């Protein structure tokens, strides 16, 4: 009996020493830090590799430029992983800042772990450099206050292989206005024998929602959430239904005819190398991948075109904003939050912004950054298409926006399911696909509404 108690004691000691060991190993930011030494600011992101390297360099420059804060770059996996962690982590373990997609602004505005950056801007009386209209609109909540600050200004569109278009005798600038045209064009090029396959898509469904916004139709009632709370998805109603149907039909036709690279192919190690080596004429992706295309084949002749609409009835009011922004987390550590704000401010410096834009292909988010000498040189010598993209953005009215909804994740998932259903099943019933997606999204909204009282 005595021996046994001794053993039990030893086991308990062992387990509790693990406990003790654990807390000293804890590397996450503690709740309150004494003002001795620099304050740790944790930055969670899904950017890695060549996307993150220039930012990390600028982060190190920020760390060196002042001694109050130290920012740490933490890669957390894909953007879904980052979101998952943010949602489920307890307050004190949250990072100070993360980079999240702009189309999730509606979600961030309503969730409990994000503090609108406008609060910090107001306190600081920062005269923010004039952001492009669409950025300002897309990162704001319903009261017009900035929830996040743009880190990257993305422009979803299509890179096209000029050589192939020339051989086919097609003018890319007029033949890719909407997805029906896209289908006809790639069909022509492939049928003429110029390439074996016609088009590849970035394996991430953000562009479905953006295509609908470009078309000018809302996806949810209450004007996509801008006139009060959304209560249901309207994919299967009215003008939206026509647009969704035409979009899905065109995609279905592309894939049923074998003109598309199987959806889901990895953008980095399959689509870009194949596109850059001249294998197919059209790649639908964002401008942020330009640097990778260039690196894969510096001599490649291409141009960038804006995202097509669903059909000929599309609006021509511009494109919604893409890319990711800095969002500050409510982690109970005011000092770290302030550090995060200072960091975001530092990164918005026009030269930092221009440098990052030049090394990835993302666009700068202010006119001032565009007009820096280095960026002007970049447009002239390296990436002329950037000018087109910037012009389209400038002409965009603020009315073309990503939906402002709290179920951003379910939205993307439902779009992804819609997309994969029509592209991987030649016998897909498009009406049924649309009804399924509508039911899925309406269900998600209703569940959210009932759980957030």
């Amino acid at each position, binding site marked *: *009996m005595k021996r046994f108690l001794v053993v039990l004691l030893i086991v308990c000691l062992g387990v509790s020493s693990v406990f003790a060991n654990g807390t000293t190993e804890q590397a996450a930011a503690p709740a309150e830090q004494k003002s001795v030494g620099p304050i740790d600011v944790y930055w969670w992101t899904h950017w890695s590799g060549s996307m993150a390297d220039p930012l990390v360099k600028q982060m190190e420059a920020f760390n060196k430029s002042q001694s109050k804060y130290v920012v740490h770059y933490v890669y957390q996996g894909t953007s879904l992983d980052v979101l998952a962690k943010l*949602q489920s982590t307890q307050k004190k373990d949250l990072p100070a800042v993360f980079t999240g997609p702009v189309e999730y602004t509606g979600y961030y505005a309503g969730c409990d772990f994000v503090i609108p950056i406008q609060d910090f801007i107001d306190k600081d009386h920062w005269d923010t450099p004039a952001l492009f209209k669409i950025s300002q609109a897309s990162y704001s909540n319903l009261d017009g206050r900035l929830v996040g600050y743009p880190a990257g200004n993305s422009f979803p569109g299509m890179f096209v292989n000029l050589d192939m278009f020339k051989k086919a005798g097609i003018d890319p600038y007029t033949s890719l206005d909407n997805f029906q045209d896209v289908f006809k064009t790639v069909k022509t090029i492939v049928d003429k024998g110029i390439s074996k396959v016609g088009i590849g898509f970035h394996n991430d469904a953000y562009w479905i929602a953006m295509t609908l916004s470009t078309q000018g139709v809302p996806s949810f009632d209450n004007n996509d959430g801008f006139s009060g709370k959304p209560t249901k998805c309207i994919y299967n109603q009215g003008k939206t239904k026509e647009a969704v149907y035409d979009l899905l039909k065109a995609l279905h036709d592309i894939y049923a005819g074998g003109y598309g690279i199987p*959806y889901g*192919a990895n953008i980095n190690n399959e689509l870009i190398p194949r596109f850059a080596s001249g294998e197919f004429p059209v790649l639908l992706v964002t401008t942020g991948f330009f640097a990778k295309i260039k690196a894969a084949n510096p001599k490649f002749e291409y141009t960038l075109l804006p995202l097509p609409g669903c059909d000929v009835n599309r609006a021509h009011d511009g494109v919604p904003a893409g890319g990711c922004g800095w969002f500050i987390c409510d982690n109970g550590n005011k000092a770290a939050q302030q550090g995060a704000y200072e960091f975001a401010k530092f990164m918005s410096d026009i030269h930092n912004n221009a440098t990052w834009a030049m090394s990835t292909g993302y666009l700068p988010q202010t006119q001032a950054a565009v007009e820096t000498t280095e960026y002007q040189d970049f447009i002239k010598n390296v990436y002329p298409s950037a000018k087109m993209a910037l012009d389209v953005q400038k002409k965009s009215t603020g009315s073309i926006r990503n939906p402002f909804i709290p179920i951003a994740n379910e939205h993307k*998932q439902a779009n992804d399911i819609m997309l*994969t259903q029509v*592209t991987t099943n030649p016998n897909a019933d498009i009406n049924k696909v649309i009804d399924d997606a509508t039911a899925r999204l309406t269900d998600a909204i209703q569940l959210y509404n009932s759980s957030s009282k």
Partner: protein
Amino acid sequence: MEIKKKTKKIRYTPYLLIAPSLLLFCMFIYFPFVKSFLFSFAVTNRRGELVKWVGLSNWIRMLSKPEFWGIVVVSLKFALINLVSTLLTSMIFALLCTRPGLFSKSYQLFYSLPLAIASAPAAAIWTFLFKQEGGILNWVLGTHFAWTQEANTALLSCALVNVWMNIGASFIFLLVGFRSVPLEMIESATIDGAGPFGKTIHVMIPIASPQIFFVFFLNIITSFTTFAPIRLLTDGGPSTTTTTLIYAVYKWGIQNGRFETSCVYAMTLFLFIFCTTRIQMALEKRTVYYQ
């Protein structure tokens, strides 16, 4: 000889011996299990905290969605493919190795080696093999599939990786079973004129039935709970073609923050495992022959 153990007093020793284990089981298996069960009757917020009880309406909502049944069907398909492939292949391997011969340890090692490979590196290796253009699997088979992206092949790809990893364990268990068949039985069967096929079916399999039964049991559970290959290869697959119950638990609980939905899937998964093992146990009495 008087055995001291038969005392009238209650001995506390055995209870103390098993107490720490039972305590831990309660903490990380039974308590969360009950919590999962209860939460499936509620609505939660994104932090997993209870908002309100809704009773059966949560289950009714879930069961009336075709998406739910789609996931159930995918899970069953996946489990079936896994079970049949693993069992057949490991049985063939085990039968090949029944008679230990010269250097037989070498190929025995090969058949069981993937057991030591974790799912993350296995997924990494197979991601490479599954490439459409210039991928080795396509080259070997002469096909041109985009294995992890096409609706017809996505589930097969995940199953292939999973089976490859799991054959090792089943192989070892079956090998033990087949090796335990007494040589005299095999010889007398040969004398009776049984060919290799006949011997296998009428002698080897019945004698090894305890191990075969165990391998069945093991594979059912592992095939229902396979997570990493799906997460790393297809992320739930083109539309929902590779979303199994366990993946839905992860997707809805962690990615979408909808705990109540996740708990419904978790309970359904448990129900399936429970029922299949129960059926198996019932069949054990009829089919397993113990020496």
